């Protein structure tokens, strides 16, 4: 088993005829993801990715024709909030928004609408999720994975790849790797994803990769202390050397008023029973020391 994406995923890619959309759609297909449809308004009836994927004008038509239940959005920032709402209206249950640069205030009504409809949004500005050997949705390189029992959740992109590659190299596989995105307003928090991992019997251990800014890591630590006490937990927090008051690339990565520091997050995670690595390369050894075998 796995969370968010897996064997029952039937994926529609919104923005499939764009450069990014088509490139990553091809990589998802090659990984074996059940990619059943693409959507680009005005290009309905065409086929994308060397003719392998039917393109529809609307998400509703794609759902009707293919039974799609998951969406991955590559639509540019100006249209991405609308693309999310279109997916919700078409009854898509799990939506990944890869798009970066969406203004925070645009996302507030969108996440409220997603929540009200009972759907789940991951991102925006996220790399997606992979359940190794089953499906990958988003832009995480497929080759870094190995099937296994460690659930990985992260706010970052390439840093996640770094950590996952280190695990795979050490022979430690993953149940699902989820990037929740680095924006201030995201659809799924660390806690939302940890809740799914907690309910997944095949996720035996957790790796959480955080960074400076906000309090999502502290909230995750508090939740994990109560609900994941029996599972090995390893964490890494990026930004120990980040100066206060400067946005470190991600819109959400900023220490302000002395809050959101790496030190505060590391302390909270350690208090909640996480082993905290001081380099991504230490994650496999910490997992081993906590009893993870493969």
């Amino acid at each position: 088993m796995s969370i968010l994406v897996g064997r029952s995923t039937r994926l529609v890619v919104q923005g499939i005829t764009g450069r990014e959309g088509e490139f990553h759609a091809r990589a998802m297909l090659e990984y074996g993801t059940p990619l059943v449809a693409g959507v680009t308004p005005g290009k309905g009836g065409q086929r994308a990715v060397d003719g392998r994927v039917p393109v529809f004008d609307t998400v509703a038509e794609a759902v009707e024709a293919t039974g799609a239940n998951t969406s991955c959005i590559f639509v540019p920032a100006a249209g991405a909030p609308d693309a999310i709402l279109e997916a919700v209206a078409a009854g898509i249950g799990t939506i990944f928004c890869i798009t970066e640069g969406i203004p925070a205030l645009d996302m507030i009504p969108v996440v409220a609408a997603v929540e009200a409809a009972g759907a789940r949004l991951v991102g925006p500005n996220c790399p997606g999720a992979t359940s190794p050997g089953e499906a990958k949705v988003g832009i995480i390189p497929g080759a870094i994975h190995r099937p296994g029992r460690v659930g990985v959740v992260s706010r970052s992109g390439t840093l996640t790849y770094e950590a996952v590659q280190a695990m795979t190299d050490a022979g430690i596989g993953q149940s699902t790797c989820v990037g929740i995105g680095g924006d201030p307003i995201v659809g799924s928090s660390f806690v939302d994803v940890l809740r799914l991992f907690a309910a997944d019997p095949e996720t035996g251990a957790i790796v959480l990769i955080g960074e400076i800014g906000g309090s999502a890591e502290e909230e995750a630590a508090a939740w994990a202390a109560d609900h994941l006490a029996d599972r090995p937990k390893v964490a890494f927090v990026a930004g120990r050397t980040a100066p206060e008051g400067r946005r470190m690339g991600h819109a959400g990565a900023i220490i302000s008023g002395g809050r959101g520091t790496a030190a505060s997050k590391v302390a909270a995670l350690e208090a909640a029973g996480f082993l905290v690595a001081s380099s991504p390369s230490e994650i496999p050894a910490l997992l081993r020391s906590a009893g993870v075998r493969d």
Partner: protein
Amino acid sequence: MKIQEADAKSLLAAQGLPVPPWQVARDPSAARAAAERFFAAGAERVVVKAQVLVGGRGKAGGVRLAATPDEAEAVARAILALTIKGIPVRKVLVSPAADIVAEYYLAALVDRSARRILVMGSAEGGVEIEEVAARNPAAIVRIHADPYLGLLDWQARRIAFALGLGAHLREAVAIAKGLVATMRANDADLVEVNPLALVREVGPEGIPTERLVCLDAKVTLDDSALPRHPELEAMRDLDEEDPVDLEARRHDISYIRLDGTIGCMVNGAGLAMTTMDLVKRAGGEPANFLDIGGGARADRVAAAMRLILADPNVRAILVNIFGGITRGDEVARGLLEARAAQARTVPMVVRIVGTNADEARRILEAADVETATSLDEAAAKAVAAAARVGPMAAAEPSEANR
């Protein structure tokens, strides 16, 4: 993006919020002229405030009162000579001084955990809200605005009553709603009025009245939304901006200059922070945060190289590219070309992971560039390379950590 108080006040005024009149002056005589106008209009005193994008102006002597035009000029001269947290004061705001009866705190901001706009108010104005939160959290009222409709009237009334502003309900409601409206109209992350002041004024018949005014204003804008607000882009204070920041923005590179000697070029923000952390752990100091974004495109690699080498403190460059889908050999060639185009060379340690990483390594080693397999190894090699270059010459203090 942070904007100056005067610009923040103009955004509040545009939403109909009560802001005292002000004028910005770049030299003491302009400050004097502004003060003379306010005295002529009946002000008893004026306040002269440093316009800098850092907090703690008051404590640094950057906010002072004056009772005469002479005094205003002298005070402005003193403030314009200040450097506050590394920022030289280049302009001051002059405004009639208010007769303050009581001070309050009111702000609207993006609450990430709740995924809503949060309005916070406190009857303890004029002090930092963090201080109030630490000392007396119950003194802060918090209301989340409706995600679709913004702050509703009843919500604004609750805030007003909680602040003890029942006698000024209509004004207080308009101000609370106005903060959220200012936020939404300009895509701000934060709109803070501290203090919101109840001031005593003498009416036309000589009868004293009390009303609420926004005595100070702090607004930060969402960088992601700036493309659709060209009028706000004009509020960017180029005086306080490092020219390299401008150059970085032009190439869509996230660059933040720091005080160390190891220049870092990385793809991805989280990995870029991690690279800095590992440089520090290996005994070095990072010279910058730099995220070249996805794809490691040749033009961005070249621009990143220029930005890093423009910093005279840099003694070695650490390149860390987790390719995944990027072709490592192309990145390697791009790096060598970018380096060849620079007048100054420093040792470079390159670590490339992903497609064609082995070929990338051969290309780099053939050009006598040091390579590394792991990030930890790359950090250690970069620190060693910088040490070989020798001790740092007395470098100019950077303003990066402001």
